């Protein structure tokens, strides 16, 4: 409790720094590009079109049977994209902040936090692409859309927690950066982004038969994405298991992240 209080106090004291750092990243990201922030919308939209085309023509297997596949896919892409962008940019945040924290005292968690916030800002801009796609495909708008805030907010905390752990680990072992890219690629195939796990068959490892939809339930990202889809696309509320799994994973990841980060942060300066 005391720990949390200290964090919140620091957070309040350095809120302007956080704001300014996000502003800086934003300016630098779109500086010198003609379309600027429009890319945040255009990029996921174009990626979505590519994937829809790939999955409904060339590979012709998954899109079938899913209602409004383009939107279904786009939700998965956006949320998963937020997670990978948030975690991998948080991961390198301490290295990027090296010139600063070697000279001035700043609470170090500001940097991973800023990166995850920036990823969220980008993600929010990208939701415009989702709106466009929903209009284009004539998807219905349900009142349950408001409930989508819950999976989004918990996903944010989850990403922050994972990002903090990765940031601390990367300071000591740069290998983590390379591994994480591989890991997220593997994770992508297990997050039910472009398929419905219920349609998937089973696979065998040795003599063991494993049901894909059972395995996927152990992936927290699956729950955030599914929860978001349920509220936005299907107009259903959140099921009880969505509520508690999303919440529990977020809290666990955040607690672990804060603990690991706090334990190691005094040593960061000596290793970057």
């Amino acid at each position, binding site marked *: 409790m005391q720990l949390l209080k200290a964090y919140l106090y620091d957070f309040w*004291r*350095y809120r*302007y*720094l956080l*704001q*300014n*750092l996000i502003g*800086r990243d934003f*300016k*630098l990201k779109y*500086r010198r590009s003609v379309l600027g922030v429009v890319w945040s919308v255009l990029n996921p939209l174009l990626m979505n079109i590519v994937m829809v085309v790939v999955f409904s023509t060339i590979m012709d297997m998954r899109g079938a049977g899913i209602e409004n596949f383009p939107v279904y896919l786009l939700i998965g892409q956006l949320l998963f994209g937020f997670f990978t962008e948030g975690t991998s940019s948080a991961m390198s945040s301490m290295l990027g902040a090296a*010139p*600063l*924290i*070697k*000279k*001035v*005292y*700043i609470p170090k968690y500001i940097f991973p936090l800023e990166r995850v916030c920036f990823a969220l800002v980008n993600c929010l801009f990208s939701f415009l692409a989702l709106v466009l796609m929903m209009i284009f495909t004539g998807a219905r708008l349900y009142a349950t859309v408001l409930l989508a805030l819950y999976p989004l907010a918990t996903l944010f905390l989850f990403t922050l927690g994972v990002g903090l752990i990765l940031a601390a680990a990367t300071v000591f*072992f*740069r*290998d983590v950066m390379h591994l994480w890219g591989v890991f997220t690629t593997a994770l992508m195939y297990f997050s039910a982004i472009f398929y419905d796990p219920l349609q998937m068959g089973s696979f065998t490892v040795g003599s063991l038969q494993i049901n894909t939809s059972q395995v996927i339930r152990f992936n927290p990202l699956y729950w955030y994405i599914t929860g978001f889809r349920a509220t936005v696309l299907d107009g259903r509320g959140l099921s009880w298991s969505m509520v508690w799994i999303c919440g529990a994973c977020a809290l666990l990841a955040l607690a672990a992240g804060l603990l690991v980060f706090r334990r190691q942060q*005094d040593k960061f*300066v*000596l290793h970057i």
Partner: protein
Amino acid sequence: MNMVEVNGVSMRFNMAKEKHESLKEYFLAALQGRLQFEEFYALRDVSLCVKKGEFHGLIGLNGSGKSTLLKVISGVFKPTAGSVTVRGAIAPLIELGAGFDMDLTARENIFLNGTVLGLTPQYIREKFDEIVAFSELRDFLDVPLKNYSSGMVARIAFAIATITKPDVLIADEILSVGDFKFQEKCEERMRQLMSGGTTVLLVSHSIEQVERMCGRVTWLEKGRVRMQGNAAEVCAAYRTLGGQPAAAQ
């Protein structure tokens, strides 16, 4: 009242003979028992008290631990042993331009660096003209900082760091940049701050400057306090004993 209290501070660095930057290397080395560190004490049992409104100088040869001490005081390093107490807000000028982003313009950097120092955007807006006037760089405000010369960067940085009335100002070699007119201006500004009650800790290789500006001086040698006392005495001793190169400046 003591604004800065440093009690028996030691700072140890592990100078790894080889840096293990990958897991495989690290584990291989650990398995073979090759994980040796050479211990290096940058500071050993350093104690220091700075009273309110005092202008305290730190002198010593290169590598004697002056900058490390300032970093310990400003909280960047956590001391291996001993304790540091600082009362009030610190404005660290350990290296000018820390926290500047070279891709941003000077205007944007003033806000970014101001918030790094814990100022509010509203306060920076109020003082913006004063900062710009002090740095004399009004014509270049919207130029990215990467196109600035180091002297120009230093001007902006000094102007931002001294715009508040910090309780403790920590300055490492910052007065050596900039032309002589700007140096005079900086000294002037530091005197102003001090008359307003700011305590200053200054590292400088210019003995004349330390003698002229500081009340008390600490002389560090190889991480230990060699001598502590009023400026004239310590500077004189430093000149005659080990400070030949410094005296030549």
